């Protein structure tokens, strides 16, 4: 309650404080005593990364215990975290799922300056995203990137040549259609590709790959060719329509894992999920591979070039209300989580850490069930990753607006041009002028 808050609330809370008879913080006196810091996570039983980090840190810092606090999954995580931070009941260390929300927390004064933890972490672009006015407010512990997952068995069945790293989007569209006819001819009901309902599946690539594309400019013309290809594939029946995916609540895990679609553009987090589901029987066991995402043009294709893709880092930040005696331990934890040791541990459970080193790639590709071909390793390790949500005051507003545009275009109501120009008008009049 250090900041200026509405007078009414402070009066009310003062009253309730008296009623509740509670006082200020309780600071432990002895700095050498065992410390417990709390860390927010979600779906702890099915998301092992938090426990991996906590255990790994404990091994090198035996006096520090990282206690996990469970939050709701999905968007509900942020709802709960925002209310907890507003009320001062949030844990010491918490996760920012993407950069869209980072701005909310940072500008709201809910992140401690952690610049001193970033010294040993080099200068990755992910790190830069968390810097405001030269100070770092969070560190990345995961950096997923979007790649193309493909089913080798289905490609063979359809007699279509699998991806070789040279694909542009036109090649991808063409291959999807040929897969569709090929699979149909072979008596399979699988579709050529599955495009999940996320706006990222179109907009993330368009923003990252199109030269001079800028979300914050409010000019969304760069989205047009990407949407036209999606609509083309929908119309050809080569991928389930947006409407079908929405109304039947199709999940990308089942679409790809149960071999209902031969290709899937998705973030690298899906590697861990797919491996788990193969174990549990929720996914079939088939030959699969990873290829670089299709590219804007030929200049970034081929294994001698560096493909461009997108992905937001997942970051850890410290709650400014943490008691002073715990700050050092929390910062040490951040340093560990963003560093190479945690990276190897995370790769061991199929998670892509903030820095993909050779050791990380080796560790991930050493897991049972991961494809061993060179293209998969290349796609996993080599790329330029651009953020999906460039950090700014207007990002959340623009992304919400573009999410509405996404569903409007793909449900094919008024056409790409009309919807994009409407989005541009709204961006100008409702978001960028604020």
């Amino acid at each position, binding site marked *: 309650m250090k900041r200026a808050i509405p007078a009414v*609330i402070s009066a*009310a*809370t003062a009253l*309730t*404080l008296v*009623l*509740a008879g*509670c006082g200020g913080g309780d600071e432990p006196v002895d700095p050498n005593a065992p410390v417990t810091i709390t860390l927010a996570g979600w*779906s*702890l*039983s*099915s998301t092992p990364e938090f426990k991996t980090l906590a255990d790994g840190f404990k091994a090198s810092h035996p006096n520090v215990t990282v206690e996990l*606090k*469970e*939050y*709701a*999954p*999905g968007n*509900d995580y942020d*709802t*709960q975290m*925002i*209310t*907890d931070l*507003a*009320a*001062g*009941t949030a844990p010491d260390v918490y996760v920012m799922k993407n950069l869209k929300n980072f701005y909310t927390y940072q500008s709201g004064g809910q992140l401690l300056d952690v610049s001193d933890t970033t010294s040993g972490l080099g200068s990755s672009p992910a790190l830069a995203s968390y810097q405001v006015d030269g100070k770092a407010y969070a560190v990345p512990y995961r950096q997923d990137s979007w790649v193309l997952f493909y089913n080798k068995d289905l490609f063979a069945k359809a007699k279509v040549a699998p991806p070789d790293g040279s694909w542009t989007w036109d090649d991808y569209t063409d291959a999807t259609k040929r897969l569709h006819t090929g699979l149909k001819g072979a008596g399979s009901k699988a579709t050529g590709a599955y495009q999940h309902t996320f706006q990222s599946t179109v907009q993330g690539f368009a923003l990252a790959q199109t030269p001079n594309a800028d979300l914050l400019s409010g000019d969304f013309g760069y989205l047009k060719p990407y949407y036209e290809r999606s609509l083309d594939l929908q119309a050809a029946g080569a991928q389930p329509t947006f409407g079908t995916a929405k109304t*039947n*609540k*199709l*999940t990308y*895990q*089942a679409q790809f*894992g*149960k071999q209902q679609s031969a290709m899937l553009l998705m973030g690298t987090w899906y590697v861990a999920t797919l491996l788990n589901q193969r174990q549990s029987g*929720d996914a079939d066991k088939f030959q699969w591979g990873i290829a670089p995402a299709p590219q804007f043009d030929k200049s970034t294709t081929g294994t001698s070039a560096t493909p461009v893709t997108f992905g937001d880092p997942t970051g850890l930040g410290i709650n400014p209300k943490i008691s002073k005696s715990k700050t050092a331990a929390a910062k040490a934890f951040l340093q560990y989580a963003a560093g190479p040791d945690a990276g190897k541990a995370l790769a061991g459970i199929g998670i892509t850490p903030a820095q993909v080193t050779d050791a990380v790639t080796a560790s991930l590709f050493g897991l049972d069930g991961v494809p061993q071909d060179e293209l998969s390793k290349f796609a996993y390790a080599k790329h330029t990753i651009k953020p999906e949500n460039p950090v700014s005051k207007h990002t959340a507003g623009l992304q919400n607006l573009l999410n509405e545009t996404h569903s409007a275009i793909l449900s094919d109501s008024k056409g790409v041009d009309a919807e994009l120009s409407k989005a541009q008008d709204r961006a100008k009049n409702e978001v960028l002028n604020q």
Partner: protein
Amino acid sequence: MTATDLSTPVPAVVAPGNRAPRRPVRSLGGRILGYAALALAAAGLLLPFFWMVVASLKTNNDVFTIPITWLPDPVVWRNYLDIWQRSDMTTWLWNTLLLSVIVTFLQVFTGSFAAYGFARVRFPGRNLLFLAYVGTIAVPWQSYMIPQFILMSKLHLSNTLWSIVAIQAFGAIGVFLMKQFYETIPEELSEAARVDGLSEYGIYRRIILPLSRPALASLALLMFTTTWNDYLGPLVYLRSPELRTIQLGLNTFISQYNAEYALIMTGSVLSVLPVAVIFLLGQRYFIEGVASTGLKG
């Protein structure tokens, strides 16, 4: 239900002509027509529910098929065993039951008491106060939940089941509903009692409460269902997994097993059953009840 007129003690003060025996349907044609209409309405109402039950008895891969299959083949009863092992269904049900009972009790008790004050005692500022009650019903909760949450956290109530009790138990709906009921009870009753020297509390306890017992049952049922179904409240206030309610639990279950729709449907069916049973048991009081308080036009 046919014994409506006999089973409840008819309050002597209500004029007999005021009571409405349910009209018997005389002709066979009318009866058949009635059943046909009922069957049709029930089919429409139940179609989605039927689909839910069917889906809960299918294997996961059979839930979404093209074209849709209307009967499970084979019937998978296993889902109803699996769900207890793969989720904390017992904890969720217990928490929700506990909450619903406490909230219902408090809401009925304080709500009916306050409603009597609003309906029967004339004092300055009463109407303004009542307007404030009705007014807050019109404010969407998500817009004031942050100030409320801050308050509750200062009281150290957040992340306890008490927080849900606190936010649900003093709602305005119960007061509004009970006030409507009380206003239909003839004023002369209280007048007569006042002449006999009964205090307002005495009138409430001796005259009004017995008359409105069934109305209270109806409020209790509605409150129980509302608390049972609440999602946003528990989402905002509860963190610890062992405090989860059924709706919150179901939702985490869904995100955990995102593709397992058969199990999700099993969970949904199980979450409906307890309320359905309570409703079936309680509806005798519920429906008769309203009749004997004489909610009349």
